[in-house]
């Protein structure tokens, strides 16, 4: 017994000493899980600046988005401690924050200027007013269109068009003989792919996922109107096989000049205007995502990739230092210096949009306007019991929305009618919500 006590005391002493050493500011190595996209890769290339300033080194674990989501979820729910910083989105942050799985970011330094974070981003990454993840970059969705095709069709894109205008313009721009589709939109199954797109479209027709008592609302006329409109427009002017198209497929079509319009993530603006990759780089215009006539809510979403610290880490202080570095205004200037203003991470800080250098970027203002037009706490016309625009911030949503989007994709592919898909979506959702104890 004495030996056990002695061993316990010794191990406690070792762990206290180790913690004290870390807290003392000793250099350490941080393991960071992140996604593979341009902004994150750029950050990896600039990490030496962080190491120079703090002495801490960084090990990157870069994974595809869905793999990353599964990987970090496994680790955080088991308190595994494999990562010191995780890249997560607006869907996970409030749920994980509520479960105390994340370290609150409520003591960031004054220099960091937390009030400079765009309010919509800050709200979406907080739980009960406490910030749990710092936005690295943010995005909304908007219309990207071919100015030359629009002109040839004899039409002019308004700053904030309606769905009815978009359908008309898409039909006018469609040229099947030359493989030009008037409009390219996501139809691929998956809650973050076609599921996200149809949810924001439905919002702009006044539909909602749940009423205030968590009853599914797919049996309401707004959903039927939104879905029938989408299917009708895509059959008239969409590309063949649109039911399996996601972000990348549409990006590829647009870059090859095969889409008149594309409504998708604002981050795509930098891809379609890059002459190295896009054949239509010099003829792309931007407009706000559409709304249905008579309804104010627009069909744009809000998303942020943010950096959070899992509660299981032993290196919280060093992790905070990294987050302050990576999401600071100084970092934005570092990227601008090395890669140009078009490549700085957008959508996170107010000051970026006040910067004269950034204002010259053609899509900067529309990106900001789109982000400002999105309100996760009031996503549609009628009141809802949830937070989120293209998702519902409850743990059950990913599973339910994946199944529902599969039914919708089957309707897009002509394997069932819109009415059948909605009927199944209603049953799937209500059953799952009942099993989860919401109803």
């Amino acid at each position, binding site marked *: 017994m004495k030996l056990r006590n002695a061993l316990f005391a010794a191990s406690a002493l070792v762990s206290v000493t180790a913690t004290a050493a870390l807290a003392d500011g000793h250099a350490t190595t941080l393991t960071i899980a992140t996604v593979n996209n341009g902004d994150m890769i750029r950050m990896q290339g600039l990490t030496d600046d962080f190491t120079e300033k703090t002495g801490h080194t960084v090990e990157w*674990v870069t994974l*595809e988005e869905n793999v990353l989501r599964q990987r970090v979820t*496994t680790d955080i729910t*088991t308190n595994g401690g494999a990562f010191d910083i995780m890249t997560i989105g607006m869907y996970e942050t409030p749920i994980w924050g509520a479960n105390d799985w994340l370290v609150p970011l409520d003591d960031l330094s004054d220099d960091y200027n937390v009030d400079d974070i765009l309010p919509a981003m800050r709200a979406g990454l907080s739980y009960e007013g406490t910030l749990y993840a710092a936005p690295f970059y943010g995005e909304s969705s908007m219309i990207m269109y071919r100015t030359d095709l629009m002109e040839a069709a004899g039409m002019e894109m308004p700053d904030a068009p309606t769905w009815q205008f978009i359908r008309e313009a898409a039909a006018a721009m469609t040229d099947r003989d030359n493989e030009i589709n008037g409009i390219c939109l996501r139809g691929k199954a998956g809650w973050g792919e076609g599921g996200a797109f149809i949810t924001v479209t439905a919002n702009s027709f006044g539909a909602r996922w749940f009423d205030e008592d968590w009853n599914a609302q797919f049996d309401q006329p707004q959903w039927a109107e939104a879905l029938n409109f989408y299917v009708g427009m895509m059959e008239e002017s969409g590309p063949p096989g649109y039911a399996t198209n996601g972000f990348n497929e549409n990006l590829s079509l647009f870059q090859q000049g095969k889409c008149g319009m594309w409504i998708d993530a604002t981050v795509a603006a930098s891809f379609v205007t890059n002459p190295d*990759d896009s054949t239509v780089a010099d003829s792309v215009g931007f407009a706000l995502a559409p709304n249905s006539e008579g309804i104010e809510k627009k069909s744009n979403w809000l998303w942020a990739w943010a950096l959070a610290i899992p509660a299981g880490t032993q290196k919280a202080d060093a992790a905070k230092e990294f987050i302050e570095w990576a999401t600071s205004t100084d970092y934005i200037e570092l990227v601008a210096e090395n890669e140009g203003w078009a490549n700085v991470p957008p959508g996170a800080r107010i000051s970026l949009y006040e910067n004269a250098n950034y204002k010259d970027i053609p899509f900067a203002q529309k990106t900001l306007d789109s982000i400002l037009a999105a309100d996760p706490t009031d996503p549609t016309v009628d009141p809802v019991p949830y937070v989120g625009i293209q998702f519902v911030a409850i743990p059950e949503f990913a599973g339910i929305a994946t199944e529902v989007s599969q039914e919708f994709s089957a309707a897009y592919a002509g394997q069932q009618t819109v009415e059948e898909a909605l009927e199944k979506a209603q049953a799937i959702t209500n059953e799952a919500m009942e099993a989860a104890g919401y109803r």
Partner: protein
Amino acid sequence: MARAVTTQRKALNTAIAWAIGLLIFFPILWTILTSFKTEAQAIADPPVFLFFDWTLENYAVVQERSNYMRFLWNSVFIAGGSTILGIIIAVPAAWSMAFVPSKRTKDILLWMLSTKMLPAVGVLYPIYLIFIKLGILDSRLGLTVVLMLINLPIIVWMLYTYFKEIPGEILEAARMDGASLRNEILYVLTPMAIPGIASTLLLNFILAWNEAFWTLNLTAAQAAPLTAFIASYSSPEGLFFAKLSAASTMAIAPILILGWFSQKQLVRGLTFGAVK
């Protein structure tokens, strides 16, 4: 008496075999070709096959961004270690099942195989928690043991099948000459089953090399093998197919070369005992 085969028939068979071979190899060939294209050429429609400006830029980018050698070493260690460990455990197990079967041998063999039918994700959390408790998360040792356990049923089954082809009388003769059990397995059984053991070794090395569920879920920065290296170039928001193809080519190159040099042994082992 051998059946006469006409020249025409031979030519037809050869053509069919080549067509099937090319069809199977085409995705790999396409990946290799794409790795030498620019991102714009990689998504060109109609696709460009051979006539494009070949570039090594993707390889340069991948090389600059990732520590390829660390991923490669982890793959070699994990795939090699799990295969060798599996063979060491499976040879005595297969010997006992092939030459000293009990009433339950067939049931045990079937039960072993049935463990392969369980979806891996079903045991992810228990194994993850065990790894945390043992402190072997993100370690090569932990992953080696897990992959060995996962492939063990296949190794035992393959060796059992090869051992069954060896006449038991030869082992009996060795025993009568005074060979101990260890010597019987090491110096009599193993040399006779070398083609079978070699093909089992190669096949399981390939399986372990390509395993992507456990290698992604039980590693972070230290023990991640080439499967994680490939996964780091896949992106749902952005077209990086050329870079992804370069990473894939670098990941499959060692196993392709190994397969090329050992194809004779592999085929001999897989067809061992097929013709009596």
